[in-house]
């Protein structure tokens, strides 16, 4: 149901839109500009998640309770999160980047990597590639109507980590390139805060007196593995420049999406779970699902007053049983319930695993799903060729006058558009 073959790229451009959700809110509500505003966390509505510049100047910081924040800044506007909206906007960003290069790997909301291997003839050197990405965002991104696309920080480097370090050092509109020859020297000077490891490990490293990546790289790898396990090993390899994580193009599944509009707003957990259960049952009965087990689920709820709730579930064991999908959903509802009454529920099955042989035998349209997968792969390949060479180079043969005695009149080539 999805193509497992993915494109990878060693060289990467990191596109980082810091505080992306808050920026989305500013685009949606221009009246917030200039004022002090914060977003509360989608998982804990008592705590501040994102802080605007004016609020930061007043002393408000991430992780603070809302009451503390209001105490520091009485004019503070506290916004409920709308993760569905942010996700939609970020999808537009990814689509804009995909027009530049098809190898895109989003890592978190507001941060994505663009694989740039083999584009020298198309965009030139690193500077040209960075310009192409910035132009792509400006022309096609969701923020194109505002000047905010300039807020993107862009960094170029070998491997995702180096690109991320470059983006973190960049200013909006002024990208940073870390060339291979400067890489070790640049990374050695970076603080350990740039390492993609757990906060607790960061804290312990700092207590041990390690402040830069050079300090970490000077230690033997075995010592870090002994202290911190696999994460310690990863931290050492990254700090020592031994690990280059390539950009891995995302697999774009064709999700099964079902929506349920509730006749009255519902806040009661039991009723919500019952509604989710109905949706999951209906989605499992979808013809395209037959013969496949579900690996990833996204549940969305549109709430009263324009807010939303969203959760992504990756199932440990792919399943076709509704109970095994609803149980983790119930746990998420308990951990972080929606902040208001839901008016619409949406369930999406976003990743699939082949079912058992018996299930496959009964998969009425498994073959058509496979055909659809091939068609998607063809479309992606054709798009890649068009992007790389700026003109279609794939054609197919069409009959024109197959009966003609003149050979050149019988068939013709036409651009292939799968």
């Amino acid at each position, binding site marked *: 149901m999805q193509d497992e073959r993915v494109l990878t790229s060693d060289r990467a451009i990191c596109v980082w839109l810091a505080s992306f959700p808050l920026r989305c809110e500013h685009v949606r509500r221009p009246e917030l500009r200039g004022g002090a505003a914060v977003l509360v966390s989608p998982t804990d509505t008592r705590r501040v998640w994102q802080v605007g510049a004016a609020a930061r100047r007043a002393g408000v910081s991430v992780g603070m309770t809302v009451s503390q924040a209001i105490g520091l800044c009485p004019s503070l506007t506290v916004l409920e999160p709308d993760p569905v909206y942010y996700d939609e906007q970020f999808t537009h960003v990814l689509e804009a980047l995909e027009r530049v290069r098809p190898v895109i790997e989003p890592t978190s909301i507001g941060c994505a990597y663009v694989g740039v291997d083999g584009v020298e003839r198309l965009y030139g050197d690193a500077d040209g590639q960075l310009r192409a990405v910035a132009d792509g965002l400006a022309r096609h991104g969701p923020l194109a109507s505002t000047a905010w696309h300039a807020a993107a920080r862009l960094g170029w480097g070998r491997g995702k980590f180096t690109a991320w370090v470059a983006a973190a050092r960049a200013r909006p509109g002024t990208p940073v390139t870390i060339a291979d020859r400067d890489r070790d020297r640049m990374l050695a000077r970076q603080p350990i805060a740039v390492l993609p490891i757990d906060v607790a490990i960061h804290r312990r490293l700092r207590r041990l007196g390690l402040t830069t990546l050079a300090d970490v790289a000077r230690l033997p790898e075995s010592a870090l593995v002994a202290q911190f396990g696999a994460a310690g090993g990863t931290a050492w390899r990254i700090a020592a420049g031994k690990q280059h994580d390539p950009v891995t193009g995302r697999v774009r599944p064709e999700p099964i999406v079902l929506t349920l509009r509730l006749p009255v707003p519902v806040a009661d957990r039991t009723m919500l779970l019952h509604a989710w259960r109905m949706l999951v049952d209906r989605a499992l009965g979808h013809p395209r699902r037959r013969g496949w087990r579900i690996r990833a689920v996204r549940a969305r709820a549109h709430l009263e007053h324009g807010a939303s709730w969203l959760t992504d579930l990756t199932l440990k064991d792919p399943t076709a049983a509704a109970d095994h999908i609803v149980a983790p959903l119930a746990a998420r509802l308990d951990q972080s319930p929606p902040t208001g009454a839901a008016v619409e529920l949406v369930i999406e099955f976003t990743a699939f695993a082949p079912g058992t042989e018996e299930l496959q035998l009964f998969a009425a349209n498994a073959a058509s799903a496979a055909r659809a997968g091939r068609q998607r792969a063809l479309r992606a390949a054709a798009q890649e060729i068009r992007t790389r060479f700026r003109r279609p180079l794939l*054609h197919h*043969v*069409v009959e*024109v006058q197959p009966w003609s*005695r*003149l*050979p*050149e*009149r*019988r*068939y*013709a*080539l*036409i*651009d292939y558009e799968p």
Partner: protein
Amino acid sequence: MVPPARAPIRTDRLRALNEPVRAAVECDDRGRPVQLCLGDDPTPRAIATLVEEWRLDDEWWRDPVARRYVEVVLCNGKHLVLFEDLLDGAWYVQTP
């Protein structure tokens, strides 16, 4: 009259397949090709044998087409089909 809902066929994007390629052909006194140069390559290739010869006349009601096709074998064993445009005397290579 209701216009067809289908997207118009972009005939400007069609490219004919198997178009004749101009060739410089040298013939003997009986009009049979003995050697040829293909495209931009000035190297003459000797023709070993003539396999078959036929004539094609078509479209006499608008732009008449008159061709003399000759299937030949080159000295390196390669088969080629040539034709002489009987209206202007030019030679071409084409797969029939």
